[in-house]
């Protein structure tokens, strides 16, 4: 379980390292007018705009790692959900709404999606966690209604919501695949195919 903490620490070191790369936002973030630079799809989630942005995401990552350890989530599940949410979940919204995206929070919200599914191990109702997380995600947009910040706040909230839902769906998918492959293994061991 502690492997998750090591994985998170490695990610934090990468985030801090990338933070000191000169011109990181222009060179590595996901920009609509630089669509031909394909590496940006892999780098944008490691870039942070300012120190507060970096600190908030480090705090978020540390928190989901601690919760994952508490819930005894496997490193494979945690890392695959985290990285795939970070790389993929913002893409549909980015194509639809055209904005410059950077930061790791989509990956963190993917992690929250995974956590929401695993809290059932402790008898916590999954729908309550999903409801609370959704309310927290859209709270910022709600308070920005009628202000000039609403447009960027709603894009941020939607992007986080996509990350959260992606985490839930991706974990559901890998759990299903795992259960099918386990059933096949059991059948082979039982000799059903003889």
């Amino acid at each position, binding site marked *: 379980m502690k492997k998750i903490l090591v994985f998170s620490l490695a990610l934090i070191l990468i985030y801090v390292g990338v933070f000191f790369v000169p011109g990181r936002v222009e060179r590595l973030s996901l920009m609509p007018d630089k669509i031909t630079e394909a590496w940006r799809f892999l780098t944008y*989630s490691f870039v942070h*705009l300012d120190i507060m942005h970096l600190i908030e995401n480090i705090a978020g990552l540390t*928190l989901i790692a601690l919760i994952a350890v*508490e819930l005894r989530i496997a490193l494979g599940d945690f890392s695959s959900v985290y990285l795939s949410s970070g790389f993929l979940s913002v893409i549909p919204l980015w194509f639809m709404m055209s904005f410059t995206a950077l930061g790791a929070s989509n990956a963190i919200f993917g992690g929250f999606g995974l956590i929401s599914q695993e809290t059932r191990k402790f008898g916590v109702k999954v729908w309550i966690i999903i409801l609370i997380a959704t309310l*927290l995600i859209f*709270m910022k947009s709600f308070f920005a209604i009628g202000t000039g910040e609403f447009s960027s706040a709603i894009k*941020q909230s939607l992007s986080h919501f996509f990350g959260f839902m992606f985490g839930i769906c991706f974990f559901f998918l890998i759990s299903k695949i795992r259960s099918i492959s386990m059933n096949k293994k059991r059948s082979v061991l039982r000799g059903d195919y003889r």
Partner: protein
Amino acid sequence: MDIIELSVGATVISGGAFLLTYLKKIKNKMKRSVLRNNEE
């Protein structure tokens, strides 16, 4: 062009911290109940 900072935010961090505390509490409760059952 909008730059969207994908940052977690204080409210979500507080919510996550609350969830972590709650899970620890449930875990301790479970441990105590198992210990009590073993003693009996």
